[in-house]
């Protein structure tokens, strides 16, 4: 049963990821990315990391996707089609990616993993204790650093997005072009 679910998830992941990087419509490609992220949350559910799946769904599917959709709607004209790369470039990049994938897969399949058979599940409590423990192997310092980083990113995003006003109603590029 779990086998089938994993294969279905894998097919959803790969198909929607390919659709996401090759779709010509901007908004559709964001929605395909949303499918991919939900599939990844499904994989976390399958390997019994419920907390991580919840984080994936809230932060990625709920936060980042909404942010990207926001920027698409602010910036892009919906009916406008994306500019696509030349066919020759696509083929070259595709070949390079296929070669890289081949190298990855040969390395993975030639390596002997000593897998430990286990079905114990990790609770949220364990993760929280690990995050906040200041003994050996605890993660209290990175946790604090991440909190400072998030604060800095928040302030930075506000400062950057505020920007400067356009000069007398025109975008700055036009003013710049006249100056040249």
């Amino acid at each position, binding site marked *: 049963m779990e086998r089938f679910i994993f294969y279905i998830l894998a097919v959803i992941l790969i198909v929607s990821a390919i659709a996401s990087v090759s779709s010509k419509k901007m908004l559709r490609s964001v929605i395909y990315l949303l499918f991919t992220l939900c599939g990844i949350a499904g994989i976390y559910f399958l390997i019994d990391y419920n907390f991580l799946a919840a984080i994936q769904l809230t932060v990625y599917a709920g936060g980042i996707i909404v942010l990207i959709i926001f920027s698409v709607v602010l*910036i892009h004209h919906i009916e406008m089609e994306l500019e696509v790369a030349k066919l020759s470039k696509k083929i070259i990049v595709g070949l390079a990616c296929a070669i890289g994938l081949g190298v990855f897969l040969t390395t993975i399949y030639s390596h002997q993993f000593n897998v430990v058979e286990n079905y114990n599940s990790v609770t949220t409590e364990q993760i929280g204790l690990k995050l906040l423990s200041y003994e050996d192997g605890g993660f209290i310092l990175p946790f604090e650093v991440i909190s400072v980083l998030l604060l800095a990113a928040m302030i930075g995003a506000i400062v950057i997005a505020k920007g400067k006003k356009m000069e007398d109603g025109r975008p700055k590029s036009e003013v710049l072009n006249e100056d040249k």
Partner: protein
Amino acid sequence: MIAGISIYEILTVTSILFFIGVYGFLTRKNLISILMSIELILNASVINFVVINKYLYPDMLQGVVFSIFIIAVAAAETALAVAIIINLYRQIASVEIKDTEIMKY
């Protein structure tokens, strides 16, 4: 671990995801699309952390904690990138790569 699924199959799926992300990163010409490809790459690596933690070292939690940190950094990065893109759009009225050739003013 998932019953009946070996670690090789999951690593194959994540490698394919990673290279789809690299493909999108190199072929797309729009800044937002490139941001989305980066999300794909980051997610593939996060699954790798989690799966290797679960299959090889089930008593430890390092993989889970690191993936939480990666997700936090990815969220911060996306917020900053969206802010930069919006500011760029105000200044040059475009988010295509070929138009973004000046760094300031």
